[in-house]
């Protein structure tokens, strides 16, 4: 967090007729209704037009990587839930995946399918929040409530599965903690049916065909594919720019080696494309959930792994695809009970970096539209 930003040194703008007007510096955040947490944007404005934008982050920094180093391996799997708090299940998958990669073990097949199932459910939940809050950012009030109503179903399922509604603490090195409780699969299938038949079409009708929504999002915040790759964008933001890259396909992990994923790519590269990629990915995730439920193998859900975990000396970089992009855990083990280093490569941090490039020349209203379409999560950015 760079606190020393000259907020009063506004320059002057002189137009062709010799009229001088003053630039205005607007501090948007860290307390602001739609900066999705505690992001601060220092905007230099000429009237309503943005001349420059400087994101300031770090208000939610919790020193997560230092905490990992000072806790046993198992504790990290719980603590990583708080990093990207909108899809904790996928975070845990990445963390225990890194440990497994160092130890050279693999979870049983059933556990891997359970991981796939809950990952896809978590992805739907994450995209629901993204789309809902995006509607709210643009001034549409209803989508967020509909999205949270549907997300509530996923939260209920996760609660009955893991015991926790939000920070699940469900994954372990070598498998998962609990098997499905009785009736869970029926509950899940019912939810999937309802979501696919009712909720997605409703959301689609409410937002996609809306003239004002189109006018606000199409052609706004265009990201070049080359630019997107150079800035390290991943996830829906990258795929909306026409780059077909999805870690579930590019480097399949876990059960994705057996379940084919159809990556959703759009060519437009604007806010609307990013929104549509998310919407399509939700349908794709529903399909993947169905496949996982169909192919769910029997057997044990966990390997026998010592409680006091001491992975051998070694290192691993284990990356998974979250709702926001690549989440990588770079872990170094020195053979003790504590990780020597656990780097959390967050997708939102990298995705946020491109923001100043996108803002220039747009209006204040577009600032919010672009920021919402990037879909950052400040817990993920600041760690």
């Amino acid at each position, binding site marked *: *967090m*760079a*606190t*020393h930003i000259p907020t009063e040194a506004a320059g002057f703008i002189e137009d062709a007729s010799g009229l001088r007007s003053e630039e205005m510096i607007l501090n948007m955040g860290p307390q602001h209704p739609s900066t999705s947490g505690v992001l601060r944007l220092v905007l230099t404005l000429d009237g309503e037009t943005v001349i420059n934008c400087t994101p300031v*982050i*770090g208000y939610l*920094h919790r*020193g997560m*990587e*230092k905490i990992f*180093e*000072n806790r046993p391996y198992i504790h990290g799997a719980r603590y990583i839930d708080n990093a990207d708090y909108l899809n904790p299940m996928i975070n845990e998958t990445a963390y225990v995946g890194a440990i*497994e*990669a*160092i130890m*050279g*073990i*693999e979870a049983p097949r059933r556990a891997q399918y359970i991981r796939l199932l809950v990952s896809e459910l978590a992805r739907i939940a994450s995209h629901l929040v993204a789309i809902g809050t995006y509607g709210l950012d643009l001034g549409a009030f209803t989508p967020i409530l509909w999205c949270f109503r549907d997300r509530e179903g996923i939260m209920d399922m996760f609660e009955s599965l893991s015991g926790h509604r939000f920070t699940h603490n469900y994954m372990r090195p070598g498998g998962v903690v609990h098997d499905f409780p009785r009736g869970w699969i029926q509950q899940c299938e019912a939810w999937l049916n309802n979501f696919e038949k009712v909720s997605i079409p409703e959301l689609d009708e409410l937002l996609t065909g809306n003239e004002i929504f189109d006018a606000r999002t199409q052609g706004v915040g265009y990201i070049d594919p080359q*630019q997107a*790759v*150079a*800035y*390290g964008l*991943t996830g829906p933001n990258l795929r909306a720019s026409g*780059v077909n*890259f999805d870690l579930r396909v*590019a*480097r*399949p*992990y876990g059960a994705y*080696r057996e379940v084919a994923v159809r990556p959703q790519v759009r060519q437009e590269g604007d806010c609307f494309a990013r929104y549509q990629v998310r919407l399509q990915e939700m349908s794709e995730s529903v399909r993947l959930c169905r496949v996982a439920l169909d192919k769910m193998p029997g057997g044990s859900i966990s390997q026998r792994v010592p409680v006091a975990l001491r992975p*051998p*000396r*070694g*290192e*691993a*970089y*284990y*990356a998974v695809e979250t709702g926001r992009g*690549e989440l*990588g855990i*770079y872990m*170094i*083990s*020195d*053979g003790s009970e504590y990780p*020597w*280093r656990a*780097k959390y*490569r967050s997708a939102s*941090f*990298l995705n*946020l*970096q491109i923001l100043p490039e996108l803002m220039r020349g747009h209006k204040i209203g577009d600032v919010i539209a672009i920021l919402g379409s990037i879909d950052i999560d400040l817990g993920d950015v*600041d*760690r």
Partner: protein
Amino acid sequence: MDIAPRSGGAVEAPSLLAYDRDHINELLTALARLDQQMGQPVPKRHLNAGIVGIEIAPEMVVEAGRALRDSLGFEMLTCISGVDMIEQLEAVYHFRSISHFWLLQMRVKTPTSDARIPSLVGVYSSANWLERETYDLYGIQFIGHPDLRRMLLDDEFEGHPLLKSFRTTPSVVHDRATTQVDPIRAISGEQQRKQERTVLKRLGQGQQERIHPGMTTFGSEAVFLETGQGVGTDANAMHGYTIDEQYLDPASKPQEE
């Protein structure tokens, strides 16, 4: 300190990709071109989870980055992790090839005392914030970075917290900015009164109201202590608070700390 396995030679890494072996071999073949470009063989290692690792000297970083991007097709710099290995600091770069699905790990070692690595911002735009973050948490200076400031921590923060030498508990304890009595001392009434008296003396007369709006006994009582008046008034009775006689006697005043 080395993180290579101590015994048993090379452990076969678990396969992540069905075509893992071919995939890795392809990457290794491509990396031979890097050797040519750098003019010297680059040490390569097959790591866990289907990753190939290379090691580069700090002064070769920009050259290697350019070679990786332009001739090998690693379009994306996805991650920079600082590592504190006590003897040396390391920056671990992870490169991705979007077109070939490759993942390459590049390790750069630099001495702890003088940690300097050339910046990759000119080659990869994503290096900007990643290097700032590594500088913030590890203190590695990235030479040539356009804007090397703290990223996540406050500008006034002292030290680099992810170094192993960093103390997680503060070494200097500052005075607490409150006149609240320490809860441990508050257990015995006498101690508390001494404390209150001391605090009051420091603050001086006339500021009683500002000390503790929530605890009326504190302020009002203290006034009586200083002046010796008001003992046994209604105010005291109301608060159910009596004063030891010794405090009213100037001779037996407790010494100030």
